[in-house]
């Protein structure tokens, strides 16, 4: 005898207006609107899933999902319920406002930095994410941001491009754009020497993500993680604390609920505390499969069952500013760099083709190309300096300081 079918739907609506500049001139205005729906029906420990792009009648979508029960995708877990809504939208710009702002930003660049050629994209993106089910779940997250990406090239350079910066704001502020442009361009032409001690100043999401991968519960259980057998052991710096943070304050187009429909207590999960990995993270299926605690989060999967992931990683900030952490030393802001990626031992090599030298107050000049190496356990271990309490540079976002070594 079959159990009753429970229906659920995941929806993502995204609207974007974009302005594109090439060779410092506005060349196009684009509008895009997308609707993605994941229809799911749960029955007898299985789930049928139908993913559709574009408008679709709910009954048709659920019928197609029910037809996909033949694929026997397993989902024998308790379905969640709950109601919560989060609206992080601030100033939503009209197309006319966005265009005027974009043109004004480019005019600032061309007026003040005529020796550079610019390619710029500015988007205004609005997103509405929602999950509902027959058990009464209704979770929703709405967000809006203006995102700027700027590529610049100096007139005398033989490179295709010389550098890049980007940033995103919920309420666009042109003074931040100008400040960032001045920071990256004002002293670009001044060549300086590579300092003895190499301290990188950059956003940390990619690096944190690597550590996050090592804490994937499935990888730990299989024995394929470099942190297998090291939970509870002091592996990183005392100053390094890493957590998954889905709270209102740290969300950026990210949901507070995960792919299993779970919401964490305080929206957080501590993964590394004062240098000690505390736990591997696992969704419901991974937890059951390997006999490990179900911690969440699970990544959202519109086309299949969820798995471990969907992390929104945050490193605990120091109580010192970037300048205080530098303590009289220089930091390097990479503009154009290529990494080998992290190999099986956690080693990496980077060619830093173009970078700027920062003295804690401002950029003093441009560095020549050089190559460095690092190891992920040292980056967050002996070479970890910290995440500043402020965001003076680097895309107006949190920034990490860590040492690397010349090769």
């Amino acid at each position, binding site marked *: 005898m079959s159990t009753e079918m429970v229906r659920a739907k995941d929806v993502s609506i995204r609207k974007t207006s974009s302005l*594109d500049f*090439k*060779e410092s001139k*506005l*060349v*196009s*205005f*684009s*509008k*895009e*609107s*997308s*609707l993605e729906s994941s229809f799911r029906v749960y029955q007898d420990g299985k789930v049928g*899933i139908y*993913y559709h*792009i*574009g*408008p679709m009648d709910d009954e048709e979508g659920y019928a197609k999902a029910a037809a*996909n029960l033949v*694929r026997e*995708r397993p989902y024998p877990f308790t379905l969640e319920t709950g109601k919560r809504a989060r609206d992080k939208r601030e100033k939503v710009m009209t197309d006319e406002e966005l265009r005027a702002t974009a043109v004004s930003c480019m005019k600032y660049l061309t007026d003040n930095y005529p020796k550079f*050629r610019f390619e710029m*994209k500015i988007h205004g993106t609005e997103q509405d994410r929602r999950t509902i089910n027959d058990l009464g779940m209704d979770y929703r997250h709405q967000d809006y941001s203006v995102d700027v990406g700027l590529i610049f*090239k100096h*007139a*005398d*350079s*033989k*490179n*295709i*491009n010389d550098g890049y910066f980007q940033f995103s704001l919920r309420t666009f502020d042109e003074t931040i754009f100008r400040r960032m442009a001045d920071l990256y361009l004002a002293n670009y032409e001044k060549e300086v020497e590579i300092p003895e001690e190499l301290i990188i100043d950059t956003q940390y999401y990619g690096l944190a993500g690597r550590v996050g991968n090592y804490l994937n519960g499935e990888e730990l259980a*299989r*024995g*394929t*993680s*470099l942190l*297998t*057998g090291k939970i509870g052991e002091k592996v990183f710096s005392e100053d390094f604390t890493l957590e998954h943070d889905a709270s209102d304050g740290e969300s950026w187009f990210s949901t507070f609920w995960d792919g299993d429909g779970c919401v964490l207590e305080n929206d957080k999960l501590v993964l590394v505390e004062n240098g000690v990995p505390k736990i591997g993270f696992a969704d419901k299926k991974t937890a059951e499969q390997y006999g490990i605690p179900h911690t969440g989060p699970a990544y959202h999967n519109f*086309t*299949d069952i969820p*798995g471990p992931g969907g992390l929104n990683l945050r490193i605990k900030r120091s109580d010192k500013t970037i300048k205080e952490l530098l303590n009289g030393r220089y930091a390097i802001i990479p503009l*154009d760099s*290529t990494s*080998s*990626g992290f*190999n*099986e*031992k956690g*080693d*990496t*090599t980077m*060619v830093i*083709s173009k970078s700027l030298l920062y003295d804690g107050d401002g950029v003093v000049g441009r560095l020549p*190309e050089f*190559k460095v*190496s690092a190891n992920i356990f040292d980056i967050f271990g002996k070479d970890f300096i910290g995440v500043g309490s402020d965001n003076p540079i680097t895309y107006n976002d949190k920034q990490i300081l860590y040492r690397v070594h010349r*090769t």
Partner: protein
Amino acid sequence: MDYNFKFPKDLYADVRIEEWYQIWLNQENGEVKSDGDLSEVGAIVRVFDGNLWYTATTNSLDEIQGQLDDLAKMATPNPDILENEIVKSYEVHRDVRMNYDGENDLRKVTRAYWKGMQDAYIEKCVDPEIKECNFWSCGISGNHRVKHFYSSKGAAIAYDDQCCNLSMFYGYTINGVTNYGGAYFVKMTAPELLGLEQEIIEKRDAYLDYAKNAVDVTPGDYECVLAPIVTAMFTHESFGHKSEADFMLNDKTLRDEWVLGKKVGSEKISICDAGDMLNHGYVPYDDEGTIAGKTYLMKDGILTGRLHDAKSAGILGEKKTGNSRAQSYHYQPIVRMTNTYMEAGTDKFEDMIAGIQDGIYVKDVSNGTGNSTFVMNPTLCYRIRDGKICEPVRVHMITGSVFQTLFDVDAVGTDFELFDSYTCGKGGQSVNVSAGGPSIRVKKLAFS
């Protein structure tokens, strides 16, 4: 073709409609991780008034006419639009090229067929006796696309393309460290994915040997031989991107640096790009409606051509080449490569190896990037000592100067291969390409 749009007066407009079908089936360590398929239809509508492009996308084909009308209201009517340099150069073709039908059409391949293929590869290529293997995955996927292009000048084109992908990857854990490696194939039809067991097993065993025995390279400059798959990446990253003309349009420094007729490499090297080859970078008509052709970028070491869209060709006074491509209907086209390769030479692979006293053979590579310094990330390397291939060596990164390395190639092999397993990223867009070449010997590259 079925569509009949009312294009706005005194403006140029085009419509690109794409119908996508995708399937995927992935197993890891005996567990089905994903199993699904997807059909999607979308369109991008573009209107140009001679000054600005206005674009919109939609998943409802009924809305295309409405989008054309709305965009036209935003634009400034231009009675002379047909005399605009770019618009004037747009070609008008009316053509249908459907290459995949009957049993070649992957949309007709059943799920049972894909599952049977996958299970057969798992049975033959996963060896439970290899105790170091903590992880394996077998993935099968396929994409089929039908593209329609209509323009206000009268172009009406439709063509299809597809690819079928197979991957077998292994994770070998030795002393707490897991090395990953395997094989990845891209073919144009499902039956072409059959019969690859031997290649997969060779890669499986090579990566196991690498995991067990590779020693770290001493960083430095080495004479080296690059296998065809590595030459392909080298060609793409070190030279291909520099051939995309949109980066130099109003840049005097770059135009002086890359002037046609300049010697930019060894006379042994010839490189070309061809969109009409039925490979991963197949583009019989680009996304501006220009017919594809073969473009020599370098002939016998001399810079002979560039890759263009209508705008770059017009500004530089060169012929259009059919290289204006967009990842999908979500994007506007920009200048991209298609099928880019170094032509075969006359040198034998054995002679290249024999001629090296102390060097490195680079057999496989995962990815790379190119600016003035190009970078490749190798996955399988071997020391060459006294003219023989010896022990595996662990290398993080290979770098070289674009301006110098092409001159440092002193042997170009006869063993040409074209690889469809490439995608290329530029400007936030990823497109399918193929890349090819023979084995080559390079006097010096930096290994670290």
